[in-house]
């Protein structure tokens, strides 16, 4: 463990824990307000549902990314995982006669399997997460191109409307997100595994000395990311009613930015689940608005890159607080 700083920072800790989610919540209200000034329809149930639909895939990816970031890891293959599962679902759900339920189950397993591969390479192969997941991303997106060389495939209408429609006043997409969080995240992070994920990210050396199975914990975090990527991919399949071998690309970096925006520390050990979800909504709505207000596609990329850089830069600011240059060198 690094020497803890003296106690005068006690308010800082409390603030830091909630700063991400709170500022995202405020940002979300401001952005929807600004959006509504230009486009009042957005506050209608249909408008809100469309914003939700535009955000949920990113939110799922960001939650998965957060599981890995909490261990001080990094998953650059999330976008490619989404792509491969999306292509798999689009080619099998209507055509193979397997039935929707089987394809959904297979997709979730595929997500876990890809996460398993990442985890094995990082935790047991001791390859830097940055390099390892960058490489596996090529494997996954290459496989996607083999499965579905160009956009196509089809998704049964029933599956599509079930995920993108509304259930009473609530968009189904929000229910899907809530369901994934309640069924996966909440149990995991109320059991020992979740505690250990945070502990490993907080201080890996302490985790080892405390007798935690560090590598298995890292492996599990990548599998969680794969699972959330699979849910995101199924949702995207439903939303577009087809498969696309380029659909996942933007989710890799955006999931990272949404997580950091939501207060997850790239250095591990700190973060919530609500922060990345709110961060995803903020980011997705800004990007969505750029399209709606006819900002040229070139400028969209430019602005998106700028936002990402600023958000990821925020993560670097805390480095300036360190009291000792050596601590920086060795961190």
């Amino acid at each position, binding site marked *: 463990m690094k020497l803890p700083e003296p106690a005068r920072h006690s308010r800082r800790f409390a603030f830091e824990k909630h700063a991400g989610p709170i500022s995202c919540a405020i940002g979300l209200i401001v952005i929807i307000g600004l959006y509504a000034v230009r486009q009042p329809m957005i506050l209608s149930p249909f408008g809100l549902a469309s914003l939700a639909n535009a955000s949920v895939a990113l939110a799922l990816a960001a939650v998965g990314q957060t599981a890995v970031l909490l261990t001080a890891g990094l998953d650059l293959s999330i976008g490619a995982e989404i792509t491969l599962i999306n292509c798999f679902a689009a080619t099998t759900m209507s055509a193979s006669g397997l039935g929707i339920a089987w394809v959904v189950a297979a997709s979730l397993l595929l997500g876990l399997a890809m996460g398993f591969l990442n985890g094995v390479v990082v935790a047991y192969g001791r390859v830097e997460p940055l390099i390892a997941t960058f490489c596996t991303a090529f494997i996954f997106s290459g496989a996607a191109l083999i499965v579905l060389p160009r956009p196509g495939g089809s998704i049964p209408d029933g599956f599509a409307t079930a995920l993108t429609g509304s259930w009473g006043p609530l968009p189904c997409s929000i229910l899907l997100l809530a369901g994934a969080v309640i069924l996966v995240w909440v149990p995991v992070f109320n*059991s020992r595994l979740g*505690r250990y994920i945070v502990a490993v990210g907080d201080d890996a050396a302490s985790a080892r000395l*405390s007798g935690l199975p560090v590598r298995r914990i890292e492996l599990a975090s990548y599998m969680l990311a794969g699972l959330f990527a699979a849910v995101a991919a199924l949702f995207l399949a439903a939303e577009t009613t087809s498969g696309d071998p380029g659909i996942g690309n933007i989710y890799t970096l955006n999931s990272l930015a949404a997580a950091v925006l939501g207060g997850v520390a790239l250095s591990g050990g700190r973060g919530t689940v609500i922060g990345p979800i709110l961060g995803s909504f903020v980011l997705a709505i800004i990007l969505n608005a750029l399209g709606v207000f006819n900002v040229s596609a070139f400028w969209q990329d430019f602005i998106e890159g700028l936002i990402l850089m600023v958000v990821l830069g925020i993560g670097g600011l805390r480095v300036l607080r360190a009291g000792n240059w050596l601590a920086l060198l060795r961190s």
Partner: protein
Amino acid sequence: MEDRETYPAASERPLLTATGLTKRFGGVVALKSADLSLFPGEVHALLGANGAGKSTLVKILAGVEQPDEGELRIGDRPVTFATPRAALAAGIATVHQELSLFPNLDVAENILIGREPRRGGLWLDPRAARREAASLLENLGAADIDIEAPVGELPLAQAQLVEIAKALSAEPNVLILDEPTSALSIAEVERLVAVVERLKAQGKAIVFISHRLGEIERIADRVSILRSGEKVGEFTPGSFSRARALALMLGESWQEGKQPERATRVRDAGPAVLDVQGLSLARHFDSVSFTLQPGEVLGLAGLEGQGQKDVLFALFGLFRRGLEGRIAVAGKTIRPRRPRQAIAAGLAFIPDDRKSLGGFLGLSVSANIVIGALDLVRRGPLLSPAAESALVDTLVRRLDIRCASPTVPLGSLSGGNQQKVVVAKWLAQRAPVYVFCDPTRGVDAGARAGLFAVIRELAASGSGVLFYSTDISEFPALCDRVLVFREGRVAGELAGTAVTEPAILALSFHEAAREAA
């Protein structure tokens, strides 16, 4: 050493036996065929100077390091600990000197890590965890620690108590306490002693490491002395004596007349090249004052982690804030907040960790030497290869750096030669103050002699040299004057012929000077 008899007599059979433990790191033997028996109901203290092998022994028992040779037995059963997890599972818990805590987790979560109470065998039960953690802390007399505070927020003494509670929560049969009291107040130490007595009464075995001889006399039943990786003696219960312990720690080097000769140098009477007054940094060192004359080699001695190394780091601008006091180099007051500023003021720093601090292992020897002196080899805006190789050749010859050619990468040289290259980097530009921070770590005897010659030459040419080493035998060989640090303060100063190993060691350990003398 009173009323030993009130303790239950230790039973015959040890709980844990280590035989012939040997551990090498590269060519260095950290532990040489060490034996250790831990008896139930007994506190076994390990005592030794820096590098004696205490840490290595503890790390092997805790499963952090694996021995190259030797055997561990629990009862009659041979065991091997591939990981700390395995040692914990075998009932061995450790209070680590460096603490094994999680700054972002709260106190209760830290104490019960790996043993979280659960409902239905799955769902964490934070309320039960807080209850258990609170009762463990209460046992330690630390009920005032906020159980829900993140550990990173606690002062060091409280963090140390949390570390102890964490080890106790494992309900170990063997408890290893590696300098558990370094940050504790007297009252807190008392509570720890009471807890240790209780564990003894329950038949647990305890390994206790401390540099405070007073604590060892109070707590320990059996004391093993280590020196240079070897166990050189063991005091059975009731037989401990400070004077004999110090003699054992020193070994033969404490014979009269074995002091290395030191030429008495004529010192410049000029003003101090370095003047440090009241230098303090919270939790690192406190009110450190000294002056360094031109031509003088001043040693900063003491056991590891007593603040002497941090003083050097602070002088070199490695601490960005919190530094109090005055530093003047060659009469000019400076406030170094980054190495650039310290270098500009005239400080040259030769660190122990060449990889991360002093050298560029992938770059050539030549590039490493001129990196800080590019102005000297510049013709207009361009670097002049001729001037560079002239400068490099001179320094390579002067320092006797052994390399095939100055164009080979620094990483391909031996440790001692790497160290010389780092020194050469600073020689290219003459500095008033040279700071050597454990420069002989991982360096063989021949290279060490060469390095010492360089240091003496630097002093002879009028620079002041600050020297820190983890090997106390180097101070008498090199230093005109030595400050001995203990717990962040200067515990004493030795000069001239008074700079001897026993004197340094005595000052390093608590109030031991009288017995040693």
